[in-house]
């Protein structure tokens, strides 16, 4: 019982992946997919999710070959030290970018829905320090916190939509599959932002308990998040129709505002959702914050990652301040998707090739 191994179990890995992916993106997801794919939004989410799942499994496959090492170490083995250093720096930057994007979107939404007169800076700083508090303790508390928050986030979100069943108009999802391949592809790309977060697989492998079925973890977390996204989008588009959904910035909040529990005391449920969403964003921000800190500490060979938690806070903060407005935030987010493309598609392929070459080389040298 007296254990302090700082490793997370299979269940915790599943939930950690889920809560990391579930972040700021959920608010705008239905607008993005409605814009790109119209009535086929649900299919697009399903396909996008499955694509992301395949990529995540691919990253997981490569990382699992080096179960005791993080990206910094095994990339150096696969593709020479200098390349690995550059890639690691980019990976840190990548984590930081998504941390700050989540943070900025969160601050903007909170400002417009909860704290109209509070500057976004205050919201961001308080959030970052709260995140820093847990990141200092390492991955185990982050995973445990996700475990605690998971039911608090998911169950109310599921229940809250039930009274709107009568408002649903299923014709909003017609006509099915009358969509050009290009638009389908565009739609799939538009879901990317909602699945970002599984890149932490690059670095968390040494902290997962030995003998964990990571494939199962990844599968379960992806299928549950795909289901969750489809559930939410189904209600949003089902109530508003795709045209109305696509012109809104955060359709999820609008749809929740329109929900009325008959005879229920609370009229405006968006306060409840804002609370839940704070948890969702926090789990993403802290996971990215942790991943960035961890990668950086491995990169500069620091003994403890704890010392780097605080120095990263101002960096994330200033990065989050770069965009001038919320519109620009989403523009930056789409630029960042290019990095995503590199990190989840191109890099795994390159690393896979490098691994095969290396294996071949080793076999050859054994033969000789």
């Amino acid at each position, binding site marked *: *019982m007296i254990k302090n191994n700082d490793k997370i179990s299979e269940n*915790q890995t599943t939930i950690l992946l889920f809560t990391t992916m579930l972040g700021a993106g959920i608010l705008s997801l239905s607008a993005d997919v409605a814009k790109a794919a119209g009535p086929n939004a649900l299919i697009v989410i399903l396909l996008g999710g499955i694509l992301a799942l395949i990529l995540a499994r691919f990253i997981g496959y490569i990382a699992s070959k080096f179960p005791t090492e993080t990206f910094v170490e095994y990339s150096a083995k696969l593709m020479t030290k200098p390349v690995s250093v550059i890639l690691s720096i980019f990976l840190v930057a990548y984590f930081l970018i998504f941390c700050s994007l989540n943070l900025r979107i969160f601050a903007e939404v*909170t400002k417009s829905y909860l704290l109209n007169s509070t500057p976004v800076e205050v919201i961001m700083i308080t959030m970052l320090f709260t995140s820093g508090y847990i990141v200092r303790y390492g991955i185990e508390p982050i995973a445990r916190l996700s475990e*605690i*928050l998971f039911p608090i986030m998911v169950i109310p979100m599921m229940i809250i939509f039930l009274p709107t069943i009568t408002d649903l108009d299923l014709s909003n999802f017609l006509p099915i599959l009358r969509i050009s391949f290009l638009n389908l592809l565009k739609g799939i790309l538009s879901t990317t932002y909602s699945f970002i977060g599984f890149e932490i697989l690059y670095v968390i492998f040494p902290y997962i308990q030995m003998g964990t079925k990571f494939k199962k973890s990844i599968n379960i977390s992806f299928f549950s998040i795909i289901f969750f996204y489809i559930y939410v989008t189904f209600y949003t588009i089902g109530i508003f129709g795709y045209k109305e959904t696509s012109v809104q910035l955060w359709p999820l909040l609008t749809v929740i505002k329109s929900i009325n529990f008959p005879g229920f005391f609370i009229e405006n449920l968006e*306060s409840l959702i804002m609370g839940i969403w704070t948890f969702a964003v926090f789990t993403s921000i802290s996971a990215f914050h942790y991943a960035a800190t961890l990668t950086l500490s491995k990169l500069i060979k620091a003994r403890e990652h704890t010392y780097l938690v605080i120095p990263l806070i101002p960096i994330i903060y200033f990065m989050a301040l770069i965009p001038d407005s919320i519109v620009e935030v989403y523009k930056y987010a789409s630029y960042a998707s290019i990095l995503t493309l590199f990190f989840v598609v191109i890099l795994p392929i390159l690393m896979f090739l490098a691994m095969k070459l290396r294996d071949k080389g080793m076999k050859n040298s054994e033969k000789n």
Partner: protein
Amino acid sequence: MGLFNKLFKNNKSNKNGNDEDKDVVSPKVKENIEENIKYIKDMLKDSDDIIYREIWVGEEFQHKLELVFVDGLVDKSIINEHVMHSLMLDSRQAKPSIEEIKKNIYEVIKKAAITGGDIKEIDDLDKCITSILSGDTALFLDGHPKVVIISSRGWQMRSVAPPETEMVVRGAREGFTETLRVNTALVRRWIRDPELKIKQMQIGKRSKTDVALLYIDDIVNKDLLSEIKERLEQIDIDGVLESGYIEQLIEEDWHSPFPQMLNTERPDKVAASVLEGRIAILIDNSPFALIIPTTLATLFQSPEDYFERWMISSLLRILRFTAAVIALVGPSIYIAFTSYHPGMIPTKLALYIASTRQGVPFPAFMEALIMEATFELLREAGIRLPVPIGQTIGIVGGLIIGQAAVMAGIVSPLMVIVVAVTAVSSFSIPSYSAAIAFRLLRFAFMLFAAVLGLYGIMLCLILMLTHLVVLKSFGLPYLSPFVEVNLSDLADTLIRAPLMMFKKRPAILDTQDKKRMKDLRPEEIESMEIDRRNGNDKK
């Protein structure tokens, strides 16, 4: 644990130093009785409650004996009847052979003369003094290098009374008292297992307080046991006055407002915990036992939960957890909604709140703070005052101050309701230590709500949860089984599942003996019933 470890390590080195000193002075009992008595009198000089009683026995009163005991700590009847009476009178009536007495009076006295129940002999004078001060009687014999310690402890003590802080409707009404021996006996009465161990040690350089570890040897996790023993042995303090001392000296995180050990006055709770595989610490002079390890979920358990039907108990559990949430965030939600998000409450309610708050000169935060502080004051005053006046305080506080404050327009009536509901909620948490932790944190929540509204409450909640997920009680995550989820353990948290489902001991405790009961499903019971009836019919 870092700093704490360091503290312990320092203590350890100090302790070693003391041990070396101790080796030098530890006088043995001498043959000459005068020397022994002189040493004891020297050590215990200026202590007028020590009684020295000389007795002369033998045919010509040639053997000198001396009894030493503390007045008030001993049961006089034991000394009078079973020691002095037997030595001085009874032994004369049934003489063994006189020759033998002359040869070895010591053996005769030890074996045949003293009719007291529990005697032992020691040859260390310092230990002898400790025994005397614990309430035993020392019997010195002239010409023998040993002293007989007769157990004669018996002092004025409170009798076993109902546990006042943990009342139940259904269940035993016995509570612990201040005497360790009575308390261990109370637990023994619940568990007659030879494997129930009561391991005693003394803690406190000066107080020499008896501390007993209770556990069931073939259930308890041995790592946990040795960890607790180690931590107890590391304590180096002059006196231990209450189990709270032990709790604070061996807990893992002294920054935390949450109790990392459960304290209870109820022997049935101790028995149940010990059966689950936990370890209880009982200490002398304290009616509160400590139970280790403790998780947040156990703070919400009451013995009654297991005695009543499971559905009712489950409802009560849910009620208690809800109460904890209300006690934690009640006033802060009020602050957040009235001062930051009035648009988020239903329009009618918002208008009502606005109308009641009309004329209230303070912002919601000040209003809440004043009322909460007043309530805490009343509660504190209520505890200190004698019972009859305490009730008066309740009336003065509840009715007069509340009513008057509303009438005077200092606070809104809704605020009074919020404070009242919060107070009632905080009292429905079975563990008092947990309840005060929640009450303390409530003020932090109020502060966050005053600065950042609903977002502040969420932040504070995250901070608190972060602290809780990091916190451990003897290596056990404080929030388990909610973290590192185990379904069979979850059955005894938010709900109390039917007793039939508790076939195993809590998995989080990692006990040696995992099985609690035989798989006896209701159908089986039914079939047994039918069998019996059939059997009867045949007859």
